[in-house]
């Protein structure tokens, strides 16, 4: 039975968008925590740590998300672990976010002038204290725009989770399209919801940026 695309369907899409947002937030939180560690390993004056970080970043950036999704969703069942769509998606997107954010944040950390390292060292701060109290706070502001830029990509890329049956915004759109055969109405609504999420993110980042003091 084919039915009309109506208000209930818009509501259905909005509810599905929750999963897009939740998946993005989870990937951002877990991936962000890992990224911070990887970014620091990438810049510490200890070569093996740098190589480890570079290797990790290249491995993740050099493989497609789709492949990673399949590996976590199907691959683990070979070992007898049954991984659900949510777990596989969160794992994949966290790893994906960690590698890209690590590389973005490394750039931010390195763009803080060397003289800031020196003047904090001259006051007796140890390496981690310099990072924590002097370098990272300044890198944060530099990093806001590219981080939000990546976050916007992440929101849209979570649509890939639909291929392992995770019902987020895109998957919900496909399902509605099958029921209503109204692709224009369905996918324009889907696109509009993605747009609202991403546009709000960009606006929020501009606000945040204006509030932080940094060397000009």
């Amino acid at each position: 039975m084919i039915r009309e695309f109506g208000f209930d369907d818009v509501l259905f899409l909005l509810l599905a968008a929750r999963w897009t947002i939740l998946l993005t937030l989870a990937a951002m939180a877990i991936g962000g925590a890992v990224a911070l560690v990887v970014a620091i390993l990438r810049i510490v004056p200890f070569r093996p740590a740098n190589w480890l970080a570079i290797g990790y970043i290249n491995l993740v950036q050099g493989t497609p998300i789709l492949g990673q999704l399949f590996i976590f969703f199907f691959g683990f069942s070979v070992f007898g672990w049954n991984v659900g769509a949510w777990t596989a998606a969160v794992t994949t997107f966290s790893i994906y976010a960690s590698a890209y954010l690590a590389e973005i944040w490394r750039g931010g950390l390195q763009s803080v002038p060397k003289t800031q390292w020196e003047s904090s060292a001259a006051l007796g701060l140890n390496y981690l204290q310099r990072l924590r109290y002097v370098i990272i706070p300044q890198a944060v502001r530099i990093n806001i725009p590219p981080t939000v830029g990546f976050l916007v990509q992440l929101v849209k890329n979570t649509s890939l989770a639909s291929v392992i049956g995770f019902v987020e915004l895109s998957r919900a759109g496909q399902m509605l399209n099958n029921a209503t055969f109204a692709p224009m109405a369905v996918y324009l609504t889907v696109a509009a919801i993605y747009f609202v999420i991403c546009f709000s993110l960009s606006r929020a980042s501009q606000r945040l940026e204006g509030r932080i003091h940094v060397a000009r």
Partner: protein
Amino acid sequence: MSLVELDGVHKRFGNLEVLSDVNLSVEEGEIVAIIGRSGSGKSTMLRCINGLEPVQQGRITVDGTEVTTAKADLNDLRQRVGMVFQSYNLFPHLSVERNVTLALKVVRKTPLAEARDIARETIAKVGLADKLNAYPDELSGGQQQRVAIARSLAMGPKVMLFDEITSALDPELVGEVLRVLEALAADGMTMLLVTHEMKFAKTVGNRVVFMHHGRVHEAGDARETLEQPRTPELTSFLNAVLH
């Protein structure tokens, strides 16, 4: 034993020898002006004293601690050796007060209330009591440099290193920074200053060290050395800077 001692120090950047066989000892309360052409090694020497630059040969001791061994606790030593830089290097994300309290809180674990008292006191000493809550980008160069001095001073150092701290300032702002240095001198602070302010070196300094090609080429009483240089290199240097 002297407060600061350099003994046969050699420092190389690649093949370039920046310091060769530098010997110097500074007593407590002494004010030593280090002068010389750019590239003569004067800033590098200062940076070796608090371990910002490693040396390849020789020994540096500060306040009884050897800086030049691999196991030297530099972070501990640096609490006793203040350093102020040419480009101020304040922390741009922190207010004036927090620039000064940061190391007290983080390194020395001073309770916040006490750290703030120390900060207020040292900031008042450099004449900026009304700028406690300002951010560095709201201050003039001279004011920023005075905050940088307060930031080092707050840690209660035994010796302070000043690396051309007036060189980046507009001429009309140099005076206010030099007056802070004079006040420090009057308090008996031990100071090593790399400077181009010859008049200041002569009036406030006890001793002048002239660096040339990475060596201490001539050293002696400040007034005497600057008025009657013994080597032709110092004579020609002084002629060049005084005109």
